[in-house]
């Protein structure tokens, strides 16, 4: 098992945090894991991203060039990373900000109304967790529950409130994805 994840978006969208949540959860699960941010001036006003590799074996490069899972929160990151998703991989994106026509049929693509769902979950800032929830539904190398547990045990959410909101967001994302999958497979 090796999952190569890219989470990308604007600086303020919590993409680094979303990646860290995945990484902590993977560590807690007993996987090998690396988390690698974009860094330096690239972040400035542009796209921030991080790369998470989760594996049951030694991880070579933490740099992901062909993600098996891409979680993309804004337009520029979509333009940049959507074409790089590995065949057979999954692309989860934030339809609230991205409205591009998806043309690849060798990957699974899921447009999540992230903002709307996050607001329903209680805070637009939980957008990142909505997409993580959806992603894990599609690529179930870990459970959303594991993420919730991780957010809690490593005190990653800022407050009990935010924790609750994040958990709801994960669930909403997952639910959305599952309905999509079932609609597809049915």
């Amino acid at each position, binding site marked *: 098992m090796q999952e190569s994840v890219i989470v990308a978006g604007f600086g303020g969208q919590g993409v680094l945090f979303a990646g860290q949540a995945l990484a902590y959860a993977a560590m807690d699960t007993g996987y090998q894991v690396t988390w690698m941010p974009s860094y330096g001036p690239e972040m400035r006003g542009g796209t921030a991203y991080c790369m998470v590799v989760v594996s049951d074996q*030694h991880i070579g490069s933490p740099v992901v060039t062909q993600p098996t899972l891409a979680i993309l929160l804004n337009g520029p990151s979509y333009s940049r990373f959507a074409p790089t998703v590995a065949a057979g991989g999954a692309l989860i994106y934030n339809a609230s900000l991205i409205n591009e026509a998806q043309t690849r049929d060798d990957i699974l693509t899921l447009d999540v109304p992230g903002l709307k769902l996050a607001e329903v979950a209680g805070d637009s800032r939980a957008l990142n967790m909505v997409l993580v929830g959806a992603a894990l539904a599609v690529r179930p190398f870990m459970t959303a529950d594991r993420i919730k547990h991780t957010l809690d045990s490593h005190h990653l959410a800022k407050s009990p409130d935010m924790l609750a909101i994040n958990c709801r967001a994960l669930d909403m994302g997952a639910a959305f994805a599952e309905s999509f999958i079932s609609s597809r497979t049915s």
Partner: protein
Amino acid sequence: MARQLMKGNVAIAEAALRAGLEAYFGYPITPQTELLEYLAQRMPELGRVFLQAESEIAAINMVYGAACAGARTMTSSSGPGMSLMQEGLSYIAGSDIPAVVVDVMRGGPGLGNIQPSQSDYFQVTRSAGHGDYHPIVLAPGSVQEAVDLTVLAFDLADHYRHLVILAADGLIGQMMEPCELPPMRPLPSSKPDYALTGAKDRPARRIASLYLKPEDGEAHNRKIQARLAQIRESEQRSVEHFTEDADFLVIGYGSAGRIAYSAVEAARAQGLRAGLFRPISLYPFPDIRLSQLLAQVEGCLVVEMNAGQMLEDVRLAAGHDLPVAFYGRMGGMVPTTEDVLSALKSAYSEFVAESAPVVGKVKG
């Protein structure tokens, strides 16, 4: 201690603290800045010395001063900053006092970029300033190793009264990985015997690198060379995998080494009897063990994130007869496992007589 998910830069900083770092001086530069920022928070909390210097030149000379005062001291930087420290490094080395410098390498030359690279292998292993000496150089391949080698760096520095460089790169510095931290050591209750502490109840002490008469200069250099000879004998460090029955050796350090590991693993899975040799000490280069291994294999591949620098050390160990292939990426490019694997396979098929793939067994 429980495993923690830590960024390399932060892990090195915390490990240094725990190893007894008493005074840190540094200047921001990507991709090492988190190290400085972390210590900006932690050192004052512990009542220890943190100071952001006005430049890398000032930083290394503050380190020089702190080392003269007998403190466990450290700075950290990257390419351009390391270049600015060369004079200070040479003075520290010429003064026979311990200090630790963390170099989180990035792409060069010039301003280059801030992406991971190993382009300063020569600078850290060969010159590190003017004059005849080498620092001890340690190259971590993971965050855990960065932690462990940071502690070792301080111990070696103190033991040999010698400069130690922890040569990481942007990948190690920026990445988060699970790791275990060492326990917090108590700070020493007394100062080392060379420390300038005021000449109270003892003769005055002097620390300098000036030997005006060439005879004295030579004597001092002989002392340094003798120390280096001992270091070469005692401090060679390396890690190896799959080497027992290997007929082909991949050699890489730091990030390139960890990526090479995955490639070798994959090659094994494809039945190639490849092994991995990962130098931990870049100076002293682990040529004793490497030579033994090279005698056993039919060829080797050096993997670096540069144009081929350690390559020279390997060629020195390999002699003329063993074919040495090279795979390098430059300017901040990080090779993928697939890149290295395909370089491995093509070198393997070229060099190894019996290179028809046999389905072998993977072992670590």
